[in-house]
């Protein structure tokens, strides 16, 4: 998904007609033979014994995908330079065996390597990579970047044997635990990271589903308790008996949504969603009242910060599963997203650059997306099926803070083909640019404000190693202040020690 977005957003100037380069092992610096270099257009080649490749695909090259087994796949945008230098990082691997409290192998265990990442200024525990253990309980998570990981484990086999084997972190805790986190270095294989699943008694949640307006009695249907904490694992399940009662056992403490009804929802289905806080006491005699799912329409408005017509924009509302709903705004910015179901929707907004549905092409970027008083641009929003009174307001702008400058080393020599990375001090939102072979760069920042600046050469900062890199280099350069429109040129002098 991310690569496709990059492809379409990249300006044509970054594309190259044919490209050649050299691939090295980032750890040893040795040239790498047999690396697959793919331009994404059915055009690929392999590096020779000296790590060299040459690719002349029929179309333009916007992005190279550089991959070799045992290394982390790297995406590289070729710039107009004689040869591209690519460092491939050897993968880190975590491997071991998971057993349950009885010492029996925990087969079919979903083992997720979670790590903290800062997304738009918020530190969150997110999935880095995952694998499934085999029937002997043995697992191997490969393709990991260097970093500190927390292993979240849920074994189907163990849970089916005893539902007290709930989703848990390595070390047998419900919450991530620093003591059992694993720090791996680039290229390191950490063996014998063994785990033993603990039984959690939890509490019992009971209740009944009220008779439904349309008279149907959906006995046998499942009810799911889904945790609302992203760092927690799997949900617990109970079934309706003939009298519409349910019992869900062994629920660990946490914040949940109790959900009755099929997923994803369809119009005409029965659905109930109840927020539920579970502590160390049983929850008894809940009454769940389902309603019939209705599709609703959501009105919205694209507003141009600078005033005037925003032009046409695509608004795409994506549920967690299945197809989303798209709308195209009119010239006055109004739009209607039709047929929305009780779901969590993420919002994606793109300008209609080629004017395929609008009279004039639009351009610009999104400043904020609000529903009522809530900024939903990062979080998305939940619909519960009741008609939505508040419109979705999308504020866009076609003005940027324009930055240009030169990156040089301590001797004044230009730093060519490096990434210049900007991070908003207040919001954490990133922007980036690349230097040409004279070390010059131009950047368009969506928002004015104070920015940390980073000069990143080669490919040392991939998406997974980002946080560690940025924290280590936060003070390489003074914070800059960018205003809308043109800014005075920057001269970034990188000190030798860094």
């Amino acid at each position, binding site marked *: 998904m991310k690569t496709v977005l990059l492809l379409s957003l990249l300006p044509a100037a970054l594309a190259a007609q044919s490209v050649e380069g050299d691939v090295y092992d980032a750890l040893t610096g040795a040239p790498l033979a047999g690396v697959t270099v793919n331009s994404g*257009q*059915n*055009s*690929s080649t392999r590096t020779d014994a000296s790590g060299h490749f040459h690719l002349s695909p*029929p179309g333009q090259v916007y992005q190279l995908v550089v991959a070799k087994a045992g290394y982390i796949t790297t995406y590289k945008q070729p710039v107009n330079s004689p040869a591209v230098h690519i460092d491939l990082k050897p993968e880190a691997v975590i491997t071991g065996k998971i057993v349950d409290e009885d010492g029996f192998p925990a087969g079919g265990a979903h083992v997720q390597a979670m790590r903290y990442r800062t997304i738009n200024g918020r530190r969150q525990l997110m999935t880095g990579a995952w694998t499934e253990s085999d029937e002997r309980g043995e697992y191997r998570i490969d393709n990991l970047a260097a970093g500190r990981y927390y292993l979240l484990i849920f074994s189907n086999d163990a849970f089916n044997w005893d539902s007290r084997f709930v989703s848990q972190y390595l070390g047998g805790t419900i919450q991530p635990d620093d003591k059992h986190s694993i720090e791996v270095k680039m290229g390191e294989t950490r063996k014998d990271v063994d785990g033993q699943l603990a039984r959690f008694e939890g509490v019992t949640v009971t209740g009944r589903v009220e008779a439904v307006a349309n008279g149907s009695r959906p006995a046998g249907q499942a009810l799911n308790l889904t945790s609302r904490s992203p760092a927690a694992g799997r949900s617990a399940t109970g079934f309706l008996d003939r009298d519409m009662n349910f019992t869900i056992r062994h629920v660990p403490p946490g914040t949940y949504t109790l959900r009755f009804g099929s997923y994803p929802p369809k119009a005409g289905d029965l659905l109930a969603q109840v927020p539920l806080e579970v502590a160390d006491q049983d929850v008894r005699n809940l009454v769940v009242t389902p309603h019939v799912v209705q599709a609703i329409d959501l009105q919205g408005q694209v507003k141009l910060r600078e005033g005037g017509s925003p032009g046409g924009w695509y608004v795409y509302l*994506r549920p967690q599963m299945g197809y989303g709903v798209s709308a195209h705004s009119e010239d006055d910015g109004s739009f209607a997203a039709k047929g929305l179901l009780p779901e969590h929707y993420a919002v994606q907004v*793109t300008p209609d650059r*080629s004017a*395929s549905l609008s009279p004039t092409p639009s351009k610009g970027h999104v400043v904020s997306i609000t529903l009522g008083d809530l900024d939903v641009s990062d979080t998305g929003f939940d619909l519960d099926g009741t008609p939505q009174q508040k419109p979705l307001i999308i504020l866009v702008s076609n003005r940027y803070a324009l930055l240009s400058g030169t990156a040089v080393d301590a001797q004044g020599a230009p730093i060519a083909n490096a990434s210049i990375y900007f991070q908003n001090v207040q919001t954490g939102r990133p922007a980036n640019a690349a230097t040409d072979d004279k070390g010059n760069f131009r950047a368009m920042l969506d928002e004015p404000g104070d920015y940390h600046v980073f000069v990143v050469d080669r490919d040392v900062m991939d998406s997974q190693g980002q946080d560690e890199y940025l924290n280590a280099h936060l003070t390489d350069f003074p914070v800059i202040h960018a205003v809308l429109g043109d800014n005075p040129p920057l001269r970034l002098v990188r000190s030798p020690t860094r």
Partner: protein
Amino acid sequence: MRLRSVFLALLIPVSLPGLLAQTASAPLAVVEGDVLNASSNAALPGARVKLQPLPQNEDAIYGKVDAQGHFVFRHLNPGSYQLVIDAPGFHESRSRLDVTVPQPPRRDQGVVRAAVSYRGSQIPEPKVTRTAEDDGTIHATVTAPMLAYSAISGKVTDPYGAPLAGANIELWKTRPPNFGMAAPSPGTSTSSAMRQNNARADSRGQYRLTRLEPGTYWIAVSKSSLNWIWQTGYRATYYPAALDLSSAQALKIEPGEEFHADIQVLKQSGVSLSGQLLGLPAGKMLSTRMTLVPADRESSEVPFTQGQDRFAFTDLLPGRYTLYAVTEDDMSDPMNPHRKPLFGAVRDVEIGKQDNAGFDITLEPAQTLHGKVEVPDGCSTVPASIQLRRRSRLGLEVESPIAADGTFTIENVPADRFAIQLSPGLPLISATKGARDVLKDGLEAPWHDDEALKIKASCPNRGVPR
């Protein structure tokens, strides 16, 4: 008859609530049994046993077997249970156990019902004997033979000998007699009924297919769309190095066997087809997606490419294909079903043994289709919508409502070949567009006439009208 009445006389007092309290310490039911290795009939120590009361609104009861493979559960309530036996290295045994009054009451052989039973499964079911003791206790004795599972594991390498990370390994199993399916070919959906399982190679190229029952298997490395980075330059390969099932090696797997199978995928030595994309408006960054559908065979390898002003297919095998191209509006999300087709083309193409670098394609605008559906008067079923099913599979089906007078208008019909379908599905008598018999030859866009699509449907409850 006499026995039964005696038994009932004994049982009735036990079920009275007042007496239940007095006899609370008395055992009501006992389940005991032996767990065996089905291959040797030797006792299987190291197994664990679960009794889950049914329906599942109570906690399960857990136990372990002793060194002789024996287990006992006492003080049980009579009723139905799920009996689950778990031993590492063996298929899990899962069955329903009725711990109830046997009929006739004294002796009752083999009344366990397997909860999970599917066609051709060789996992043995436990045997049970139930007796009622003179004190009313129900006694169930289980003999549970356990079947050791088998596994196939190995390493997948590319044509150069390097590990093929992320490769998809498919496991195919012998068809039962008279199953009546076409020979399996990896990746195709038509024969997926016999695809048992699949595994993904790790970054060392290693895979493991496990919990197999004994039987005859084939394995194949397919070209999954998920690992597109790696999948250029090789072909779907059957173990040990075959392109089709007839020359693949059948693996006869015994219980408990661990079979080692390394696979080196075969190199693709195809030709390329490339050219320019013409006819697109200047100044718009439009991307065109293209696919080559083999004309004469069902294939799991349907080449796909995309481009802006040029395109290229590589690694093609000789044969007849149909090339489909579609240019959509510039929404950047390929998951979005509402992308609008703007331009497109359909070409039949013969791939020979030489590269073809001058296959230029002029794309034509998407068109509007007008038409009318005629249904016999008084028909109780009236079609609500018309569907054009795309041969290219380059996007969602084209669908449009039909007005009350039978007319319809479909905008933005992409270049493609279509099969026509009404919903609800009425049988079609005829479908024509100008001189073209659409029912026989299908509908092809773009068309170069202004004719409407005329469809006659029959009434399902009245038959074909005269």
